[in-house]
């Protein structure tokens, strides 16, 4: 088999798979499901291959199977630790030994929480709060006010503190209700704009897919 033949088979396979996916527009059917299951199988295999080749093998070569004579026994042991903890995750399938599997989870949650906390504070909350406080720096007064009020009202919209009336009904003060109402407007506008952006993105992808497949068909027809 030549490379050209391989590309030809790949092109036809791509066309068939695309048609199988778009057949869902008619109804949920056998062909669409086959295409989705092909995607699941290949994605799982690619992820597993990437995990082994890009992470596990380099790690094991650098620690457990290191050729460097100066690599200490403690580094080799450290190399085995995540593999051992990962293997413990398998025990979560057994009700009797599920507790042992928690160690791997605990390790991931502990480190992940540390990273998430630092990332949320340093990477999100502080820069955005600084931007919000500088709303008037680069904009007109009106735009700056809209930016600041919008940000604050959006935050107020997501707070659920309220007083309880004697009959048990929760009630907010008028000014909080007003701020929440304005915040809801900003959230709705934002989600609408993001939704429209998603439509445009998917439209671009759709036209790109159609263009690629039409070009392949025209190539085959000699057009």
């Amino acid at each position: 088999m030549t490379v050209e033949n391989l590309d030809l088979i790949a092109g036809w396979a791509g066309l068939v798979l695309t048609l199988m996916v778009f057949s869902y527009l008619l109804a949920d059917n056998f062909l669409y499901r086959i295409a989705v299951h092909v995607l699941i199988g290949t994605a799982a295999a690619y992820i597993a291959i990437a995990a082994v080749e890009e992470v596990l093998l380099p790690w094991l070569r650098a620690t457990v199977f290191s050729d460097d004579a100066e690599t200490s026994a403690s580094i080799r042991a450290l190399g085995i630790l995540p593999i051992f903890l990962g293997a413990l995750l398998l025990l979560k399938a057994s009700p009797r030994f599920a507790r042992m599997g928690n160690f791997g989870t605990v390790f991931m949650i502990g480190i992940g929480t540390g990273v998430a906390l630092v990332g949320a504070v340093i990477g999100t909350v502080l820069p955005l709060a600084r931007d919000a406080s500088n709303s008037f720096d680069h904009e007109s007064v009106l735009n700056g006010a809209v930016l600041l009020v919008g940000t604050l009202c959006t935050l107020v919209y997501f707070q659920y503190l309220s007083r309880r009336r004697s009959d048990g009904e929760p009630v907010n003060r008028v000014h909080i209700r007003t701020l929440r109402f304005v915040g809801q407007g900003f959230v709705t506008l934002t989600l609408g704009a993001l939704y429209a952006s998603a439509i445009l993105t998917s439209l671009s992808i759709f036209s790109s897919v159609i263009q690629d497949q039409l070009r392949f068909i025209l190539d085959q027809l000699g057009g």
Partner: protein
Amino acid sequence: MQADRKTRRRRRLKLGNAVNATLVLALGFTTMVGLISPADSTVGLTADIFLQLAGVLAAVAVLVGVSNLLFVHLGRLPRVRKGGFYSLVVILSAAAVTAVHVLDRTDAWGGDLEGEKVGPRLFGVIQVTLESALAGLVFFFLVYAAYRLMRHRVTWANLVFLAAVLIVLVGWLPLKDWEGAGDVRDWLMEIPVTAGSRGLLIGIGLGTVTVGVRVLLGRERAYREP
């Protein structure tokens, strides 16, 4: 006797929770302090090792997940009427990708394909094509869902949502007589949408901090024993 065993079991479970919570607190706190400390300090280097260990552990977890997926589909194979055929498709697809990768790695292709890497080509055909087609398919459902929104119930929030959608879509069109639509769209994206998304992102950040602190204090059930 049985009551005594139950009490001992309960004690052991509580001890397990305490050990888990202590480990999470120690690992999380060390990572947090290490990330904001100089990279060459002891705690910075410790956090770096922790992050590498977490990365490798995540890779092992991915392998465990993929194995679980394949075992579940292997178990479904005999039940042809309950999706056994689709499970066969999943297993064959995964096996084909793995086989091609092994052949690539061992340079086992002969003839004109000698020295070629078939795996990346296969990736381009199957993975990229299928994902693009599915992403393109989403277009139809997004438009249909927007249409259904107004048929379901008309509220002021629905109207604002649809107005924002229409402004962004119309503003995107290159219409000569409607240049104002592009300006309105740009203003909407730069001012109100920026304000809203800034508020949403700060809210998500604050929520992450709240949940993170609860996890570090052992108040979340994610790793606690029942």
